[in-house]
């Protein structure tokens, strides 16, 4: 997956600082995750931006579906700040994507947990960030998102990772820090709940 750095926003120039030079003299555009991580650790701002663009959709999709659209950008910001501040601790024991997913899930669950302690913030905000049109029935997709938010956070996380993001149970278990069997049973329970909520409209969709 590659990215055109030219997409960078000019307003960021004000925030850019001189960083250590990479061996090639510029931030890598076509590079693997390991090189990108090294460049980010050296504080190369273009590498950081590249890493952000490489993972932003996956992180944003995951976060939005766990915390809901009203708080998603705030949680995505928090997630990426933790990613960049924590890259020094990333030892490469797991794939970078797994580590990033794990941070995103934990930031999301932590946010949901804090929000529960602030009941006045429980209701979803009226304004929602623009969402790409779903490929099928938009009304049903919207109901799916609403139904998702009624699930317990643990069910929500595994369902989003497996059924929406397409992660295997092995990956889900690594990201969530649980056994593969636990991931499977949680997913089954989550699907049952979704089926109960969405009910016959799912069959009508067929």
């Amino acid at each position: 997956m590659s990215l055109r750095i030219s997409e960078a926003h000019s307003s960021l120039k004000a925030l850019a600082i001189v960083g250590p030079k990479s061996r090639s003299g510029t931030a890598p555009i076509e590079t693997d995750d390991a090189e990108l991580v090294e460049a980010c650790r050296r504080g190369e701002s273009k590498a950081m931006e590249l890493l952000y663009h490489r993972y932003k959709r996956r992180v944003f999709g995951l976060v939005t579906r766990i915390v809901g659209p009203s708080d998603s950008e705030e949680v995505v910001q928090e997630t990426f700040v933790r990613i960049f501040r924590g890259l020094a601790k990333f030892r490469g024991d797991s794939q970078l994507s797994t580590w990033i997913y794990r941070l995103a899930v934990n930031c999301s669950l932590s946010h949901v947990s804090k929000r529960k302690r602030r009941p006045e913030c429980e209701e979803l905000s009226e304004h929602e960030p623009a969402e790409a049109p779903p490929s099928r029935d938009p009304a049903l997709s919207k109901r799916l998102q609403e139904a998702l938010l009624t699930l317990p956070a643990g069910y929500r996380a595994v369902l989003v990772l497996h059924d929406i993001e397409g992660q295997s149970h092995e990956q889900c278990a690594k990201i969530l820090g649980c056994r593969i069997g636990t991931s499977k049973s949680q997913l089954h329970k989550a699907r049952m709940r979704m089926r109960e909520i969405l009910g016959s409209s799912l069959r009508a969709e067929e």
Partner: protein
Amino acid sequence: MHCKEAQRKSSAYLDGELGDEQSSAVRGHLRQCQTCEHLFEEESAFIELASSLEPLEPTDHVWEQISKRIAEEEIADSDRPSWRRWLTDRRLLLGGFGVAVCATAAVALVVSGDATSSQTLASGTGEDAGSLTASASVDPQTVAQETTQALSDADRNYQETIAELREMLEEDRASWSAEVALAVDAKLAHFRRSATRERFAVGDATLLVASRDPIYATYREEISFLQSALAGELPRVGGMQ
């Protein structure tokens, strides 16, 4: 196969995780049971719908906000005292450092207002404590005040070390699973309760230095736990909650 068993296996069947024979048995049941067939159709439709959702795109200003926050945090790093940056870079040593401070500053403090009430500060901390060796000629009231001060310094030093380690550990929290986070929180809550209970039992006014040893033991145990957690030795947990 009965309905209950078929429904229990629905996700595994639809995800292709069942063996041929079990899959065949499920299909056989669905041919005979319309209720289960409908439930399977609904679950299948849900899976298809979930996988067909388009990727979501954050708005353009998110990266600007992230860059801004990273810049702010780096500025905050530069504003930190150099000793703290030094400690943070050597984060794995900090717990040991805290214990070392406590140990090297430990003094044998003889409180001898009268010959029958001498006590030894076996595990105190703080720079002042070293100067507190008192002789029989010292005014008992002065010694009592200095002892109180030394005990207060020892408590403060332990608590500051613990607070520093806890703060550093918080930075790691996002990389833990929910279960590990719960286990760590439970352990830290246990240390807090123990220290509170022991402080209450001893009372603030006492000059019986040895009676404070359980408190210091709890502090040292917590420092040791925090040090291990920072080194990646987190509590072992079973499965996801």
